[in-house]
């Protein structure tokens, strides 16, 4: 095929393009083949367990580490070899790195240039923005963790950078403050429309704050998607396990019998295309997606993915109950099932009760048992 005009894959809405970035530390490969585009104005989360390479990727974007291979384009400008000061971003570190001997106003004004009055105005503007007007004369040591965090954010935003980088900005705070700040940072980001990349290992943080989530593991991207996609349609075993709770069910597949659990047929809405030839499968379902019934509603056991289960364990986890249910029909399969408190009370659930349950065909997903990565590709 011949192109009549230069084909540009970049679009106006694209701010950052990461092309085949790799990073090796001696024999250890911290990142390999990372491709990613970040759209203008979006809130992107890099999510993964510690050591997955998410912080290394952020530091490469910031120019604090140099990649072994690949390139970075910021605003359609190649910045791979540019030092931090010649890129255009603000950064908030996990430690906040507030200058201890400068007061809040001086910290925020640190990167500002120009006349004194202009600086002062900008500082007050930012203090209003973060909801901390009037603390400008205090020193970082006199502030609470949450306040320090917001001052660090104001300092990073002071020069109106095109990109905001957040390196685990909430992990040093206690749970309540963290939850509050999550909302606040998100609201601030939306108000300013500043493109933001945040590194976190906390899936809840990623799910609540991000427009899109990049799930990483062992230096590669496992999946990129909206929080809903990541949660409801995990592309790999790793993503399914890392984000949210999951049940794993051993199953087999054959062309004649289809998918079977303990030699009983199970219906799946999306059958794995490449599962043909795969004898062993793992079926995945979220605990809250399993349906419990008050009564047996007729039909044979095992039909329509329905079977009887024995409640073995009940845990109250705040807003809901987690039941441990044993299903003899599927080879004494242990399932975790989440039910709301109201459902729990309405159904009068109690230990050692026998209860009919259904695995909805549209909520079940199949993964190759042997190789999680293969399963991800097969189902994508």
């Amino acid at each position, binding site marked *: 095929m011949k192109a009549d005009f230069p084909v540009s894959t970049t679009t106006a809405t694209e701010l950052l393009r990461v092309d085949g970035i790799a990073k090796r530390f001696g024999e250890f490969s911290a990142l390999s083949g990372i491709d990613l585009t970040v759209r203008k104005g979006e809130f992107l989360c890099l999510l993964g367990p510690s050591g997955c390479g998410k912080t290394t990727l952020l530091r490469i974007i*910031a*120019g*604090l*580490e*140099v*990649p*072994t291979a690949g390139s970075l384009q910021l605003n359609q400008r190649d910045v791979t*070899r*540019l*030092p*931090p*000061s010649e*890129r255009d*971003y*603000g*950064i908030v*570190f996990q*430690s906040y*790195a507030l*200058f*201890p*001997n*400068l*007061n809040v106003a001086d910290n925020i004004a*640190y*990167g500002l240039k120009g006349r004194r009055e202009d600086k002062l105005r900008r500082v007050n503007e930012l203090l209003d923005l973060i909801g901390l007007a009037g603390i400008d004369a205090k*020193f*970082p*040591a*006199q502030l609470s963790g949450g306040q320090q965090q917001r001052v660090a954010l104001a*300092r*990073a935003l*002071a*020069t109106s*950078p095109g990109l905001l980088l957040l390196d685990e900005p909430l992990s040093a705070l206690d749970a309540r403050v963290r939850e509050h700040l999550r909302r606040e940072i998100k609201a601030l980001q939306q108000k300013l429309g500043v493109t933001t990349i945040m590194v976190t290992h906390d899936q809840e943080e990623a799910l609540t704050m991000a427009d899109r989530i990049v799930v990483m593991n062992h230096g590669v991207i496992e999946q990129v998607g909206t929080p809903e996609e990541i949660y409801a349609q995990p592309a790999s075993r790793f993503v399914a396990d890392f984000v949210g709770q999951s049940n794993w069910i051993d199953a087999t597949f054959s062309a004649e019998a289809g998918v079977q659990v303990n030699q009983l047929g199970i219906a799946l809405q999306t059958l794995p295309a490449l599962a043909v030839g795969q004898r062993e499968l793992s079926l995945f379902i979220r605990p809250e997606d399993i349906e419990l019934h008050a009564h047996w509603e007729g039909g044979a056991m095992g039909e329509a993915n329905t079977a009887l289960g024995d409640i073995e364990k009940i845990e109250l986890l705040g807003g809901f109950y987690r039941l441990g249910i044993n299903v003899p029909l599927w080879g004494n399969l242990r399932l975790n099932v989440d039910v709301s408190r109201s459902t729990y009370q309405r159904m009068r659930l109690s230990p050692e009760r026998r209860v009919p349950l259904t695995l909805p065909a549209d909520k079940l997903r199949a993964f190759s048992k042997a190789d999680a990565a293969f399963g991800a590709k097969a189902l994508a």
Partner: protein
Amino acid sequence: MIAVLQALGVPGFAAAQPPVERSQRVAGVLAWGAALLLLAFLALPLVAILGKAVTNQQGGFVGIDQFVEIAGGAHFWHAVANSMAVSVTSAIIVLPLAYVFATALTRTCMPLKPLFRGLALIPLLAPSLLPGIALVYLFGNQGVLKGWFPDGGIYGFWGIVIAEVFYTFPHALMILITALSVADARLYEAASALGAGPVRRLFTVTLPAARYGLISAALVVFTLVIVDFGAPKVIGGQYNVLAVEAYKQVIGQQNFPKGAVIGLLLLLPAVFSFIVDAVLQKRQRALLTARAQPLVPQPQRWVDGLSMLACSAISAGLLLIIGTAIAAAFIKLWPYNLAPTLAHFDFDNMDGGGWLAFRNSLKLAGITALAGTVLVFTGAYLAEKTQAAPLARQLIRLFAMLPMAVPGLVLGLGYIFFFNDPHNPLHVVYGTLAILVLCSVAHFYTTAHLTAVTALKQLDGEFEAVAASLKVPFWTTAWRVTLPVCLPAVLEVARYFFVSAMTTVSAVIFLYTPDTVLASVAVLNMDDAGDTAAAAGMAALIVGTSALVCLLFGLLSWLLQRRTQAWRRR
């Protein structure tokens, strides 16, 4: 080594460096400047001493002939045996004393701890010649307690040992305090819960945790003693030791090659203990976990009482020695006429350099404190906080550790050999006060550098990254943030340089001229000339000046803490 290869960008070793800021080029130039300074005034003089050791007095290359010749003489082995004997004996005596003192300070509820701590550190304010002089007054031929060492018995082995015990005590004490203050209370609780009594706890918890500190302290004492010539020179009499032998060869007989050979031999124990210490330091770190609970000593009447008794006895010993020297300076004719007098301070009418020596010393100490602090902090900052010129930064780190392993005597010899050479373009500094300053800075570089590095490392490592993201050049951050936060450490380094330059004899003894004679050198010369009272006077003057400067710096530091209280509060 690998780090140097990486820094050179040798293929296969090249580590990818982050892109360097434009402003960092300035840092690169500065780093090279610092590295070259350290090369010229530290590394090259040491190379020179090696070169001198393998050439004869006419300048011809003779290889290891001189080593063989010196090693062949019974005289030499006699000096080696004597040096070993005093060093080992001093270590054996200092260690238990310092251990008891350190335990009392760190593990008991003994009252007056700050006072005892201060008293124990007093020997640091004095040149190593002072205890020798004091011993002469106490136990010498005219000594008040000469019955304790009849027939001049103090002049020799025991005199040297007692003087060295005084001189090395605070060094051992500081190491042991550090080692003993890192106790993990949980280990003691666990041991007690498992039924271990005090003796078992000592052998299973305390000593294993402190053993690296003990070894380190023993090595430091051993090295300090074996390379010190101040005490043996004053009180050693006919008891010949290696350090004095090197001094005599160079100063007395102008036999530079022979001096170089002995100097190199003295380098061996110093390098050995430096390496052992470096290895131990690494292990020591592994003992400490971040979750360790600090041990809070509980009052125990008997233990606290006995500790106080022991500390009082040791402090009394130290005070007796320093007090004797000071008292002797103000007494007309010890011990026959005890009338007070200031006659011994009439230095200008005595041999040794007079008041000029004291003025020179003040000048030297002041300039050393200023220049040393600037160089040390610049070097440490560049090495720790900047990215440009990786090779230069690696060299700074390497050179900074060198002086620790090099006795002052050896450094001084290296300086003569290197700068005395008329072909050396740096020859112009020879015989000036400048060379004394340079030598003093180099001599005390390591401790100062480590203090600076420790302070810098306590700063958040992301400050520079934040500043770069805000497009602020590094020097702005260095000036506005790094320096103000590190100011207490800056003061500490300056104080250390001042007091060290004021009291040192070992390196500068080879480098002074009649115009640049120093107070500590004057002590030695006046003692040599028989003006022991004047020597005591000058030594007392040095102690007084050092003490005053320490007080001044303490006051400055206190004022600083008060002014910066708002942001230093945690």
